[in-house]
């Protein structure tokens, strides 16, 4: 039963992260939300593996963790590529303008 409870908590947290990802307001908030979502998915997979009694799903959890890690760096690289554009966007973060 505790598994279901944990899985439920994870899904609710995912929903919270989703709200943050949609609301923003800044670009970094969204990256943060997606990164959070990734960690929660990994945990969800681990818990689901126990719920359905398939330990081989843990491989998937590992793969997810890894992909998530790479995703963050891809985003950073993207930011670095657009340094000039970035300053302007960061200003709008401050003012909380819609993105």
């Amino acid at each position, binding site marked *: 039963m505790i598994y279901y409870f944990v899985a439920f908590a994870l899904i609710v947290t995912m929903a919270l992260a989703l709200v943050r990802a949609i609301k923003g307001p800044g*670009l970094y908030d969204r990256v943060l939300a*997606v990164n959070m979502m990734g960690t929660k998915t990994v945990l969800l997979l681990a818990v689901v593996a126990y719920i359905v009694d398939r330990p081989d799903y843990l491989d998937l959890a590992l793969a997810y963790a890894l992909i998530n890690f790479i995703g963050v760096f891809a985003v950073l690289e*993207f930011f670095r590529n657009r340094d000039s554009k970035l300053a302007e966007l960061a200003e709008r973060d401050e003012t909380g303008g819609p*993105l």
Partner: protein
Amino acid sequence: MIELFNVFLMSMLIITALAMVSSRHLFVTVMLSGFFSLLIAAIFLLLDAADVALTEAAVGAGISTVLFLGALALMDVEETVRGEKWIRIFSLFVVAVTTLALVYAAFEQPAFGDPNAPIHQHVAPWYIQHVPIHMDIPNIVTGILGSYRGYDTLGEVFVVFTAGIGVLSILGDPVKNRRQRVVKKAGLRHYLIPRLVGRTLIPFIVLFGLYVQFHGEYSPGGGFQAGAIIAAAIILFAILEGEDQALKIIPMRGLYFLMASGALLYAGVGVATMLMGGRFLEYGVLADTMVAGQQWGILLIEAGVGMTVTGVLLTIFHAFAARSNL
């Protein structure tokens, strides 16, 4: 109970999709599409499709995010023009008609999860029954993918191959494009901690990729997923240390070779079976017994898939990265 999780996740899926489409800022859309991929992958897993979930996570959340970001680095990230009104009305009309057709089809379908549905009666049970007999591997998906529908998978490899040469032909040779840029890029060198951690992890990621590759007959995974993971590891290296460094490790010529030889390995196995007296891709003739032959065949073609996918994904990444290095 699992059903309930599915309902929640699917509702989130729809909200995410709506947010993706309505956001005016392309970066937000791409980030949300990563979110979308993770969600749909979790749903696939809850629906018992472990291999598909792994692929979707590696491709959707990993590779396709990297590609979209690489492309976005080159263009305006904001949607400026809004379509004219008649276009929106016309699209709504087309979409509504399509959806009505789908709704019309809905009510005479077999119920969700019904074990008596036609698809669980006809071909699939035969596979589940015969994979242990014909090739004796636990992962039925790999068995079908590699052998019964091996010809489809051959096609799949060539689709990937086509995408690779297509991107090369459209965007041009990365090495040449890089030479024309003035600014040399050194990667994320000023981020000390990430760089250190990332570099330490890369060998483990590659190792894990190899595990997924060669363990694909026993657990979720296989050539495609492994290729995506290994490519992701090298992409991580390129991001951390700069593409020049990555191109030093595997030069373009090597990538060409990897792409071509993976595809040729797959097709070559087919030709070999033909020459040994079987039909195209009839692995049974590769060894003395049917089971051993099938296992050899699947191992070889999965290796071919892995090589091509790694080569193609890296090629595509380099092609985009070389353009964005302005």
